[in-house]
């Protein structure tokens, strides 16, 4: 027997078992063949698969396993050797590949696992980023809300609108249940509920400002969570099952205008705050988020700024209204003042003439009456009338003078005069009254007092007379002493006259006059009133009623015009009083000026007659022409008259020494004549002197005359004396301008 190459199984196989093994092997093979197919299919589908080599290996392993199991199918029965060899080869290969795979998988599986880990990690990261995105979006939302809120708040400058808008917008943005604003009261001790969101008209709840919760909120500039039960938060009546939402409070600084004066932002030291209370809806699980709190704080600051702007605006509007009112008041006051001044000027202008005319008539007629034959009683009566009317005339002049003094229109008439003579004259005037009262009057002039001085003689005499007259008036017995001397600089400064700063200048000296009397004196509290016009000293008024109260006021004005000072000293009632004044006078250039004319009472000075003086008179009015001609004829002149400007042009020649021209306002031809004469006679000594006769007293006429080159202006009507003095002045000085 030949040994067969078939391989027999060990035991005779059971039929059923063999069938089952057969089927299972078949299915295993199937599965093993299909797995690589699936793998390839899915890997092909996926984009990334880094482990191709592993796949191949694995595929080979699977295929070989499948092949093995497949071949196994044939080994259940008798099978040839070839099959056995194939089987063995397959198994060997499978063994090799599977070991290789197993070895490979040791490396691969951890990698695969880590991929999973990385995937998990990335997913977490993505989730986190998502969350952060959400936050950023929320913040941006918040920022947008704040900008919108700010815009709403700042778009108006009205206080109420600002606050109302704030509450409304906040309520909308944060979906609040209630939002309220508590403002401090005027006293600053309480907070008053001023604005709410839901309730239309908040009743005036007040809460004392010193509550601990309020202090807590005021002390920090953050929004602070407070309990819903504290008084500021209990705005709505709790109804049953309400679980109140969370409440937050924030301070709103109320800035004042003065806070912006400092450069850097001021520390809020004495600040007033308002309290803003925000309540989340009750029964919701909402909580205050950080970004919401930040939003609230930012809004509170914006509100503070907007409120301060509104306050500034209110302030400036109020100031402007006030200014306008003041302007109106000032305007009407100015107009009133102007009207008053105009009325006063009109009154004065009328009084100037109207008062003087009857006075002149009275005085004239009284003088006339004195000339007639009168019984002694009648003579006495007439003398009294004359004296009273002279006094009245003086008073009228004083009043008019004072008004002109106050106007500032009075100017001193400066001239050279004999100072000593002024004192002597005053003495002479006062001696009669003094001797009647049996008063001794002594005059003492310092040896260094200059004999001649430059100043306003008339007004100086008036002042001196007034002061001395007062002394005599108020002294019943005793003596009066008048001293005059040059004031040295030490004696010039007086503690009683702090504003008086005399400055010694060349060509000037300060004359100091002291008049001391031993009369009734004046109490110290009355002294300031002495120089106030119309203020009568009570005690003195009782004694005698001949003071008008104006004298000293006028003296003071005159003295001030002369850059001096006047005052009265008295030690009290019954101790006499001393009146002192200092005035500034000039020193004349030539101490013995022969051209002086002193004592203005002398009616005749210079020439009394002008024989042969050739005069030309131009006047359109026949009557006034013949009157002027008569005047000049009486003075001995050789008069030629013309009645029109043309005639004047033809007739005037260098033989005429003076030309009198009537200038009246309607016709200004008189001025033309002056110009013509100036042109015709270019040499000064050939030209006749031109004098205008006018009835108008205003400065305009005088200015016009001066402008066209006239040598003088005389006010009509011209009396004989006036014409005489005019002619003599004219011929001496070649210029004459009468003060109007």
């Amino acid at each position, binding site marked *: 027997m030949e040994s067969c190459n078939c391989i027999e199984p060990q035991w005779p196989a059971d039929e059923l078992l063999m069938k089952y093994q057969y089927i299972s092997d078949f299915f295993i093979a199937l599965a093993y063949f299909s797995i690589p197919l699936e793998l390839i299919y899915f890997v092909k589908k996926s984009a990334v698969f880094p482990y191709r080599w592993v796949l191949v290996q694995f595929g080979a392993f699977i295929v070989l396993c499948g092949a093995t199991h497949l071949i196994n199918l044939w080994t259940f029965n008798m099978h040839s050797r070839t099959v056995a060899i194939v089987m063995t080869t397959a198994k060997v290969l499978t063994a090799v590949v599977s070991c290789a795979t197993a070895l490979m998988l040791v490396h691969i599986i951890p990698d695969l696992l880590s991929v999973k880990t990385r995937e998990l990690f990335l997913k977490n990261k993505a989730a986190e980023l998502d969350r952060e995105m959400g936050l950023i979006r929320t913040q941006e939302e918040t920022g947008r809300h704040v900008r919108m809120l700010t815009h709403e708040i700042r778009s108006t400058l009205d206080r109420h609108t600002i606050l109302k808008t704030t509450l409304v917008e906040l309520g909308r943005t944060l979906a609040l249940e209630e939002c309220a604003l508590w403002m401090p009261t005027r006293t600053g001790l309480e907070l008053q509920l001023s604005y709410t969101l839901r309730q239309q008209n908040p009743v005036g709840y007040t809460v004392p400002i010193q509550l601990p919760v309020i202090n807590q909120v005021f002390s920090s500039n953050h929004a602070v969570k407070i309990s819903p039960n504290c008084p500021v938060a209990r705005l709505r009546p709790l109804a049953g099952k309400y679980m109140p939402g969370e409440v937050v409070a924030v301070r709103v600084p109320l800035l004042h205008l003065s806070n912006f004066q400092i450069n850097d932002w001021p520390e809020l030291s004495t600040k007033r705050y308002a309290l803003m209370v925000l309540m989340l809806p009750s029964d919701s699980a909402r909580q205050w988020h950080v970004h919401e709190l930040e939003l609230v704080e930012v809004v509170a600051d914006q509100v503070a700024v907007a409120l301060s702007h509104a306050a500034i605006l209110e302030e400036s509007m109020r100031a402007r209204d006030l200014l306008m009112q003041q302007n109106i008041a000032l305007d009407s006051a100015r107009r009133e003042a102007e009207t008053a001044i105009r009325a006063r000027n009109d009154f004065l202008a009328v009084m100037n003439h109207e008062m003087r*005319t009857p006075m*002149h*008539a009275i*005085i*004239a*007629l009284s*003088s*006339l*009456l004195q*000339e*007639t034959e009168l019984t002694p009683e009648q003579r006495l009566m007439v003398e009294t009338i004359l004296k009273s009317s002279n006094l009245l005339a003086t008073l009228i002049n004083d009043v008019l003078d004072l008004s002109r003094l106050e106007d500032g229109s009075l100017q001193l008439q400066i001239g050279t005069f004999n100072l000593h003579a002024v004192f002597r004259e005053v003495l002479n005037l006062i001696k009669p009254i003094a001797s009647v009262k049996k008063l001794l009057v002594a005059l003492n002039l310092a040896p260094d007092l200059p004999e001649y001085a430059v100043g306003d003689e008339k007004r100086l005499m008036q002042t001196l007379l007034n002061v001395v007259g007062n002394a005599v008036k108020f002294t019943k017995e005793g003596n009066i002493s008048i001293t005059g001397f040059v004031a040295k600089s030490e004696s010039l400064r007086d503690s009683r006259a702090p504003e008086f700063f005399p400055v010694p200048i060349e060509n000037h000296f300060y004359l100091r006059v002291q008049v001391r009397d031993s009369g009734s004196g004046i109490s110290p509290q009355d002294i300031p009133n002495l120089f106030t016009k119309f203020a009568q000293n009570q005690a003195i008024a009782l004694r005698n009623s001949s003071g008008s109260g104006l004298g000293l006021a006028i003296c003071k004005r005159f003295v001030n015009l002369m850059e001096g000072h006047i005052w009265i000293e008295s030690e009290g009632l019954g101790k006499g009083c001393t009146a002192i004044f200092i005035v500034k006078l000039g020193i004349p250039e030539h101490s013995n000026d022969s051209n002086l004319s002193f004592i203005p009472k002398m009616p005749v000075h210079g020439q009394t007659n002008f024989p042969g003086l050739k005069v030309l008179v131009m006047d*359109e*009015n*026949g*009557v*006034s022409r*013949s*009157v002027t001609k*008569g*005047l000049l*004829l*009486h003075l001995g002149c050789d008069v030629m008259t013309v009645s029109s400007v043309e005639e004047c042009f033809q007739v005037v020649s260098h033989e005429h020494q003076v030309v009198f021209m*009537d200038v*009246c306002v*309607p016709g200004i031809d008189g001025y033309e004549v002056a110009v013509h004469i100036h042109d015709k006679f270019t040499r000064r000594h050939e030209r006749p002197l031109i004098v205008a006769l006018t*009835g108008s007293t205003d400065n305009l006429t005088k200015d016009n005359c001066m402008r066209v080159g006239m040598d003088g202006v005389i006010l*009509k*009507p011209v*009396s*004989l004396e006036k014409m005489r003095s005019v002619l003599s002045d004219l011929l001496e000085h070649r210029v004459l301008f009468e003060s109007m």
Partner: protein
Amino acid sequence: MEVGQMQRRLLEYTKSLFMEGVLDNQFLQLQQLQDESNPDFVAEVVSLFFADSERLLNDLTRALDQPTIDFKMVDSHVHQLKGSSSSIGAERIKNACVAFRNFCEEQNIEGCMSCLQQVKQEYCLVKNKLETLFRMEQQIVAAGGSIPMMELSF
């Protein structure tokens, strides 16, 4: 009537003229200008004044009768009259002229007419008074007396 009495009467009459405001100081000035070299000065000036005023018053009446009144011309006439009357010392006429000029400026026709009437009245008054005065003076001179000079001291 003897000279002294006549002189007293003259003085009283003159005084009354002053009191009434018919004449003022200027008239006395005129009297002062009268002297031996110029004996009739006052009479000459016064008659000149009468002639001038009558002419002016006629012109004024004519001017105000026109349908359209030339106020400028009226004003210049009144100005002349004012000048003359103030040269002579006829105070009331002068005052009336001042009022007249104001109405002229306002171009108030009724005012002007009434002023004209007033001026005419005053003029007539002055003329009468002065003529009486001159008659009295002539009587004194004829009786051999002299006209008393009136001195004024203001």
